[in-house]
C-alpha cells in the first residue's frame, strides 16, 4: 500500500522550506535524481533502508552519497533526517508528491501522451494545447511510444485519461457486440 500520508507530510515540510529560500528548481531536480537512483539501483535503496545495518552505517552511506552529488545544505539535512527517522524508503513517493505540489504552485501539471509511433512536434503541440484547454493549467508533456495501442493516442494528466486509441475502441466494439447479441 502506498504510504502517501507520510510522503505528503514530509513533502509539505520541504515545500515550506523551499518556498522561503525560493529553491524549488534545485529541490525538484535533486529529489527526482535521488528517486531515480532509488528505483534504478536497488543496492543503494537497500543500503539506506535495510534494518540489518545499524543506523549509523546507513547515515554514513547517505553522507557519502550527498557529498558525491553535491547537494545543498538544506536538502542534505532533509535526506539525513529521513535516514535517521528510518523513512528513506518513502523517498520516491516524496519526490512525486513534491513535484505535484510545486506544479500546483506554478499552475502546471505533468502529462504523458502515448502513441503507436513517434509524434511530430506539431501534433505534440496540438495535444498539449488541448490538454491545457481541458485542465486550465500549463501542461508539461512527456511522450511515450507503445505499439500495442495500434493507433491513435492516449493522453494522461493526473487522474484524467483521454483514450482515443484503436485498442480501446476495438475493446468497446467487442463489448457492444457481446451486449446485444
Amino acid at each position, binding site marked *: *500500500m*502506498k504510504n502517501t500520508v507520510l510522503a505528503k507530510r514530509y513533502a509539505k515540510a520541504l515545500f515550506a522550506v523551499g518556498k522561503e529560500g525560493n529553491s524549488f528548481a534545485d529541490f525538484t531536480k535533486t529529489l527526482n535524481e535521488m528517486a531515480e537512483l532509488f528505483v534504478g539501483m536497488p543496492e543503494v535503496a537497500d543500503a539506506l533502508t535495510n534494518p540489518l545495518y545499524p543506523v549509523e552505517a546507513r547515515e554514513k552511506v547517505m553522507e557519502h552519497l550527498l557529498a558525491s552529488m553535491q547537494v545543498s545544505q538544506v536538502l542534505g539535512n532533509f535526506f539525513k533526517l529521513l535516514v535517521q527517522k528510518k523513512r528513506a524508503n518513502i523517498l520516491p513517493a516524496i519526490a512525486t508528491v513534491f513535484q505535484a505540489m510545486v506544479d500546483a504552485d506554478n499552475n502546471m501539471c505533468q502529462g504523458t501522451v502515448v502513441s503507436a509511433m513517434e509524434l511530430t512536434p506539431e501534433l505534440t503541440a496540438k495535444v498539449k494545447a488541448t490538454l491545457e484547454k*481541458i485542465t486550465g493549467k500549463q501542461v508539461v508533456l512527456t511522450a511515450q511510444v507503445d505499439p500495442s495501442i495500434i493507433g491513435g493516442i492516449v493522453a494522461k494528466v493526473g*487522474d484524467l*485519461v*483521454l*483514450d482515443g486509441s484503436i485498442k480501446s475502441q476495438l475493446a468497446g466494439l467487442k463489448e457492444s*457486440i457481446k451486449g446485444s447479441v
Partner: protein
Amino acid sequence: MQIKAEEISQIIKGQIKDYESKVDLSETGTVISVGDGIARVYGVEKCMAMELLEFPSGILGIALNLEADNVGCALLGDVRKIKEGDTVKRTGRIAEVPVGPEMEGRVVDGVGNPIDGQGSLNAKHSSKIEVVAPGVIARKSVHEPCYTGAKAVDAMTPVGRGQRELVIGDRQIGKTALCVDAIIAQKYTDVHCIYVAIGQKKSTVALVVEALRKHGAMEYTTVVAACASDPAPMQYVAAFAGCAMGEYFRDNGQHALIIYDDLSKQAVSYRELSLLLRRPPGREAYPGDIFFNHSRLLERSCKLNDELGAGSLTALPIIETQAGDVSAFIPTNVISITDGQVYLEPNLFFAGVRPAINVGLSVSRVGGAAQVKAMKQVAGTLRLDLAQYRELAAFAGFGSDLDAATQAQLTRGARLVEILKQPQYRPLPMEKQICILFAGTRGYLDTLPIDTLAEYEQQLYAHIEKNQPSIYDDLKEKQAIDAALEEKIRTTLQAFGESFKAAKGLK
C-alpha cells in the same frame, strides 16, 4: 429458436457500421489492494460517495469510504479477476437499478441483472438505490388494509397499505411461508409484489419462485435474490435495490408490497463490509450506523398523500431470532423501527397451531385504521377472548370442577384457536375470513367437536358460494355488517350448521 449464421453476421455488420468511435474521457485511479470483496483505490480524486467505479473486465464497485489518500470500494462481482495496479474508471453514476413494470415476473440479482435466463429486462427506467425517504408533508396516514390472507394477521394485527410490519421468529417456523402467502393473497388485488431474498440458499429461493409460479403469483412479483454465495456487498445492496423497485410503483400512484427475507442476514453482511472497510465496531461487532441502515431502508415504505398519487409501499421485513431472543441487538432495533410485529413461536408451531402466531406478543401500531368496519365488528373481541382463554386454560389444568361460564369460555377459546389455523398457500379473501370469524365469535361453533372444524370451514365457504353468494358480494361492497346482512349471515350459518351436523351424524 433457430438463428442462421447469415443473420448473425448481418447483425454484427450493422453493429460495426453504427459503432460510434468516441474519444473516451475518463477519470481514473489504480487499485492499491484488493480482497474479501473490498478494493482500495488510489486516485479517482473527484469520486462521489456511492458512485459506481468500473474495474477491468466490467466489474463494478461502489465507493463507500472516501479517505484522504484512497477510496474504499465494495465490489459487486468476482474479486478474483482484479489485481493490484489495475486501472479503475469513474462512471459518474450513483449506484442505480432498473425499475418499472418490465421487472415483474423476473428474478434479478442484487444489482438488477436478470438471473432467470429469460433474456434482457428492457426496463425503460432506472432509479438510484439510495434515496431519501419521502418527507412529512408528502405522507398520509395509513387507512386502507393490505390483506395478507392469513386470518390471524388480518383479524388481530392488521397490516395497512404503507405500513411496516415485522415478521419475527426462530428459524423454520413459517416466517417465509407467511410472507409468501401474503404475496399469493395479492393475486386479485392491484398490489405489485417484490420479494428480496438476502443470504439464503439458492435452493430455497428456487422453491419460493416455484411456489409463486405455481400459484400464478409470479406475474406481478419481482424476486431480488442475493444468495449466500454472493459477495457481502451484493447482499447488503439487494435490500435497497428491491426497495427502489417498489418505490417506482409507490411514486406512480400504485401499490406495492415488499418482503425483506431477511434483514438479520443483511445486517450480518453489512457488518462484514464495515469491518473490512475498517469502520469501528460497536455492540455485537455491528458498525455504529447499523440502526440507520435499517431505519433509512424501512422509512422508504410509506403511504403518499393524494397530491402525489396516493401510492403506497408496504413492507414485511423478516428477522430471524436465535432461540427466541427478541432482546438481541438487531431484533430490538427493527422492532423499534417498524409499526408492529408478528411474533411466531416454536411452541405453538409444534403444537400444530400454524401459522404459529403468538397473539399476545404480536401487535400492530396502526391498529383498527387498517381494518374495514366488518372486520372490526367480528374481530373486535377476538384478541381479548383469546387472552382470557389462555389464562383460563393454564388455570383449568389444575382442577376439574369448573362452573358453566368458565366452561363456556374454554370451549369458545379452543374453537377460536382452531379456526385461526390455516394451511400453507391458501390465503383467504376478506369476505371469507369474516364469515368464519363471525361463526367463531358468535358461538356457532361451540357445539361442534374441534376436529371437525377444518372440514366445517371448507364446506361453509362452498355452501355460501352456492346458496348465498350475495353475502360475499355485500361484504365486498359495503365492507360493514348492517342489521340486514347480519340477519342473512345468521340464518345461513344456522341452516348450514344443522345440515353439517346431520351429515356428520352429530347431535
